[in-house]
């Protein structure tokens, strides 16, 4: 059962997305801001991190950069999520160290596809 960390400050987003992922067989744990996201991510044991980009304390880009900068414990797949969905956001996320990028509103099937691609190790 994949273990997912959802870093999201918006309560409704957290509630909704975590429940939807749980319904699809994922274990989901939560962090509510950038700093907590970094701390929880570095605890280890995650199959994947879903990182919102607009976060209090430090934003998703900075949080991703800090996770990646932590060395071996910070190399899990990270998918950036943003409601801004502006041109360039994708590149900005990938530059920060994210493996993939998706927009909100969440298209669940699309997101699950991206997650699946990252959860399944290349053959």
């Amino acid at each position, binding site marked *: 059962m994949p273990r997912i960390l959802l870093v999201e400050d*918006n309560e*409704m*987003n957290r*509630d*909704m*997305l975590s*429940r*939807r992922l749980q*319904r699809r067989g994922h274990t989901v744990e939560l962090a509510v801001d950038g700093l907590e996201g970094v701390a929880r991510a570095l605890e280890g044991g995650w199959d994947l991190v879903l990182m919102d980009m*607009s976060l209090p304390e430090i934003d998703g880009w900075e949080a991703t950069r800090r996770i990646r900068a932590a060395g071996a414990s910070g190399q899990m797949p990270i998918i950036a999520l*943003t*409601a*801004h*969905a*502006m*041109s360039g*956001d994708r590149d900005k996320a990938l530059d920060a160290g994210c493996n993939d990028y998706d*927009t*909100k*509103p*969440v298209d*669940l099937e699309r997101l699950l596809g991206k997650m699946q691609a990252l959860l399944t190790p290349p053959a």
Partner: protein
Amino acid sequence: MNGTLDPKAASELRHELRTPINHIIGYAEMLREDCTDGSPDAATIDRIIGVAREVLALINAALPPTGIATLEDLSGLLADLATPQETVLAATTVLLEGAHDAQFVADVERIAQAVRRLTAVPVPSALTGARESGPYAGTGTAGAAATVRAAGAAPDVAITPHSTSARAGSKGRILIVDDVEENRAVLARRLEREGYDIDSAANGEDALRKVAQDGFDLVLLDVLMPGMDGFAVLERITGNPDTRSIPVIMISALDDLASVVRCIEHGAEDYLTKPFDPVLLRARIGASLEKKRWHDREADYLRQVTRVIEAASAVELGTYAPGALAGVTGRDDELGRLARVFDAMAAGVHARESRLREQLRELQSDVSLATTEYEAMHQSAVTDGGDALAVGSVLGDRYEIRGVLGTGGMGVVYRARDRKLEEDVAVKTIRRELLTGDAVLAERFMSEIRLARRISHRNVVRTHDLGDADGQLFVTMELVQGLTVRELLMTRGKLGVASTLALARQFTEALAVAHAAGVIHRDVKPENALIDGDGVLKVMDFGIARLAEATSTRTQSGLIVGTPAYMAPEQLVGEEVDARADLYALGVVIYECLTGTAPFQAPSAVALIARVLTVEPVPPARENPDVPPALSALVMQLLSKAAAQRPASAAVLLEQLAELG
């Protein structure tokens, strides 16, 4: 509106708008997974998802990922959000009305919360300055950011569960006017659950047609509609006297002051902005309907009061139809009681008036027959009395004698032409010897004539003047074309009960008005009452009899002017008489009308007087079996030897006659 939005602001706004859409779609899809395909909830949720995706497309178009957003596009977007927002809110209301678990309810409420945020996003300052002419003109916003609608005002969408099983009668009939089908359906469903009877219209023309045809208690009217808008519909409803009393609550996405003022000025009862707060809506509908009910009740009450007043006028005019107050008499309030009492009284009056008309018709018929028969005799009377004043002579330079109408104990009655007033009058000459040598008597006579002149009544021959021409005293009077009751009786023998009652009633009215003026007739007899062709009886010679009476006493000649047959016992023995002596005499007249004979008959005056004083007359009913016992008894009461046993006054007698019908 030109110009573009700052890219950073555009990005922020995109985020702010897409986030609630994310929530709506996310929760809705989750809820949809739990629904059975084809269920009503599934359809409602699909609708929410569909609308949210449409809104997302609008947002993406107005705020493209490139960050280049024009203020015009953005302004259009904000205006475009109201309707889908309302649709989603309505759908969440529908979902909450079903029986669901707490999680379902919580998720639906989150959707509602999210959709409300859609129009609560901070608007970039660049837009606020341009708003004055836009759809948000007049909201009075200021500062760098303003909300499309205050987030704090977000309504609580929770709906009180309502039982649909026991709907006992409608709480009111409401017309919903909205061009968006979803809005109509949702509002209709909700209000139906609350017990209202609902109809809806999709456009202004349809709404006006329905309002004109059906009795609605309330109209919920959308302002923005294609074609005829809500303002135009409102103006038509409030401008039409037939529909003016129907309250109209305006519902609109526009919440600017100008449109609210415009609606209120055009007679809207209330104004609600979309998305409306269900609790507020319910309260306002309740208040409007309550007001309408009071208004209707008041209008209905006034209508029924008007009917009672009209009925009263109809009674006066004699056109009242019994049962005309049928609707009002059924009320269980005071007005109903008044109407019932009135209706019963009016029905009584109506019946009595019908009888009176019938009686008068019979009297007219008697007069008509008698007139034809009597004409020859009358002509001969004229030639009889021509000894005093010659036809063609002029009395007092004013009254030209045209002929003799009759002769009596006091003088002759002439028909004369009043040259001054150019009209025909009756002139009664008074024998000079009646007054000579008694100044007191002369003065009393004059004063009685003066009083009689004041009596003006349709049943009294009008006394005009007292004149003295070269020593010839005379009284001028209204000339009445008709027969005396004596003449009537001479030709007809006796009269029917109906004719007699018509005659007696009019005679009594004449006495009542004279007595009220302080005049006692003292010589009531068939010769002193005239009946014209219309059956109208007129009593004459008020006040004149005093002269004859006094004279006869004074001279002690034992000669009684006129006949003692009509004189009350107290009058015969020379006691002071009052109005009741006139009533006695009237009793004799009525007796004679009913039986054709006087109650007392004797070969001489002395014998007659003795009988009047001592003998009880035979009741008229025994003489004529057609006479009802009550009428017979009343006549006997009038003929009572003691004045105290007669009706107390002519007014009392009138009431007694009325009771007889």
